[in-house]
């Protein structure tokens, strides 16, 4: 018996791909293990194998392998594969963004998300074990009728970021600033609500802390939403809002090191890794209480109610910018909170969960 992993699409920097590669490292300690993908970015053709290749494996003949499936979006190739293969399945669920967020901007992608959720609904009978990386994700799986659901935290290891040398250009740009720096890290997608963030920032700089800077670091994966967002920033006339787009690890580290506060207005997160990275870089966190954010943050962060509008967000930003005592308190709590996400514990919990069915 071998354990292999299946992902829909493998891309560099993608959180699911990174998790699959991290798990592969663990699984290879026990035996042959590979990652197969229905779609592969050219940069990953050596690390990740095409899905069609799995069936040609000699170990696949008996159908006794265990397949770990990371489900994200719907894909016809994956659906057929799962329907045809007799192997026992373990589902790793990072959540699927509700398609409603995308419908106004990209109907085709919204459809893929919808099909991903349909695929998920077909799986409870096939799956031996479902592993969720947050209690929020686990509750969704239970509601769909998955009989065995376990929560195992994602392997988040900010240590590798600490080893990265911060980008010099961004560091010097940030150190030249007079005022506080608010940082958001995450893809520029509708459910992350960067629009709300810049509206709050607009209120902040026009009414409360004029010298503040807002940095948004994250790849804009949706052209239609990017157009809307860029237009909004332009119309609100915010020269202090820096849209960095996709960043290198060096730039990301420079941003984390140069920021005063980490902010997000996101409305949907299966876990939200940047929150943990921000804590690892001693940044106080400001967020709104949606989905898995409260359980990820714990008491480490200024968590605003879900219905917080840009005015309350701006007031909280101002409080964090201007109250060193509050920042110190939240940073201390963040360090304590990170202990719950110890990467070695997370690895052990994943393996322990797999052992139940392997």
């Amino acid at each position, binding site marked *: 018996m071998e354990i292999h992993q299946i992902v829909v699409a493998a891309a560099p920097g993608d959180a699911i791909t990174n998790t699959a590669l991290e798990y592969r490292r663990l699984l290879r300690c026990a035996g042959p293990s590979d990652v197969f993908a229905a779609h592969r970015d050219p940069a990953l053709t050596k690390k990740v194998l095409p899905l069609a290749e799995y069936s040609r494996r000699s170990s696949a003949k008996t159908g006794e392998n265990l397949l770990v499936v990371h489900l994200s979006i719907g894909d016809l190739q994956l659906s057929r594969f799962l329907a045809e293969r007799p192997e026992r399945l373990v589902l790793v669920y990072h959540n699927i963004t509700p398609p409603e967020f995308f*419908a*106004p*901007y990209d*109907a*085709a992608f*919204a*459809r893929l998300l*919808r099909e991903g959720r349909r695929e998920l609904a077909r799986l409870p009978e096939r799956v031996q074990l479902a592993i969720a990386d947050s209690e929020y994700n686990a509750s969704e799986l239970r509601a769909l009728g998955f009989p065995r659901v376990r929560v195992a935290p994602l392997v988040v290891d900010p240590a590798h970021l600490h080893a990265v040398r911060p980008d010099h250009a961004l560091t010097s740009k940030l150190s030249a600033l007079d005022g506080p720096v608010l940082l958001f890290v995450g893809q520029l997608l509708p459910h992350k609500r960067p*629009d709300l963030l810049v*509206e709050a920032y*607009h*209120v902040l700089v026009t*009414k409360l802390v004029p010298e503040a800077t807002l940095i948004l670091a994250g790849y804009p994966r949706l052209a*239609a*939403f990017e*157009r*809307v967002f860029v*237009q*909004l920033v332009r*119309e*609100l006339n915010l020269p202090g809002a820096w849209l960095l787009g996709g960043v290198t690890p060096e730039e990301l580290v420079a941003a984390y090191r140069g920021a005063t506060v980490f902010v997000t207005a996101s409305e949907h997160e299966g876990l939200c890794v940047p929150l943990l990275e921000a804590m690892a870089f001693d940044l106080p966190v400001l967020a709104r209480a949606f989905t898995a954010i409260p359980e990820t943050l714990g*008491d480490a962060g*200024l*968590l*605003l*109610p879900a219905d917080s*509008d*840009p*005015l*309350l967000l701006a*007031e*909280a930003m101002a*409080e964090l910018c201007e109250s060193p*005592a*509050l920042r110190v*308190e939240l940073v201390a*709590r963040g360090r304590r909170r990170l202990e719950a996400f110890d990467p070695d514990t997370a690895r052990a919990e994943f393996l322990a969960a797999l052992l139940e069915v392997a």
Partner: protein
Amino acid sequence: MDAQQPGSSSVDELVEQLRARVEERRRSGAYPPGLEHDLDAHYRHVAALRSGGRSIRERVDAVHDAAEFAAENIATSSRFRGGSLLHRLVAKTVARQTQGVLSQVRSFAQAVQDVLEAMVEPLELVDQTAGSAVSQQLEILHALIASQQQALNAQRADLVEIIDRRVREARPTDVAEAPFEPWYESERFEAAFRGSRRELLERYRDLTQRFAGCEPVLDIGFGRGELLQLLDELGVAAKGVETDPVLVKLAAERGFDAVLDDGNTYLRTLEDGALGGLALIQVVEHLGAQELVDLVALAERKVRPGGKVIIETVNPQSLYVFARSFYLDPTHLRPVHPSYLDFLFREAGFSAVEIEWRNPPKRHEILQEVPGDDEAARRINANVANLNALLFAAQDYAIIATR
């Protein structure tokens, strides 16, 4: 936040404080009413403009979702006793037929979906291509407008600088031409410095005679209305125009036909050839250069052939005038040289222009000749005559131009 009591309660307290601060800012007016709604509405507006509406694809997806045909979806419940059982029995009996029908419906639905898919794909392609082309053009336009705006701003800055410079350079004239609104009454000023009404009536009686047979006469800047009275006495119909409302009111009270208006403006309202005579007594020294040339051109049009224009003004050829009277009136702009006025009327096509020297300085004010007939006395007296001509020429002159 209290560092001794970490936990959600202290965060809740902080959130409440933050909420209270937002409310306080609202009350104090720091936040305009409905700020958050305005921001939200603005975002929706941008999103609607830049992202496009509900796509055909979404509508086709809705068809997909609705095409879940299954025998289980046919209700078997019933309000009647045993009805449910009966439904299930019937359903079981006709299960084969039901499945047959469902299978046909499924095939049909699949065929419809396939057709829709085939139609949507090229449509989406067109939509995306056209959409991106349009948005590309919009981006180009946006950039163009922005660069034009910058260019305009730069030009505007240049213009503002040029205008500022011109204003600075032209300031002396501008100050003189700025509206003058004294708190004293013009009539009091005229009474104090121009002489009594009786004196003026005497002074202008002869000049008025020149208007005999030139009806109607328009008197621009009639002042206290001496000329109007003299014309009335002469039996010549006349009308007066004045820019000072008090003087207009006084003239009207005396029974004269008086209008509150600027002379040139009023002239423009008249039909060509409507006037027999036009009088401007001590007025043109108040006019700007352009107003003066406009006045002469208007006079040429509004006074009928044979009619007369009489302009009396201070004589700049007399230096005595500048020492005694010209600067007494703060509204005097510049004296008009008789040769220039003569030139203007001739250029405008008037048939005859004559100049009458008026109001010479009193005899005791001018330089006196020395008695004797020798060479020295003759030289001195020649010099005295030259100096008198230069210093003590007539204080006023009148142009009498015949159309």
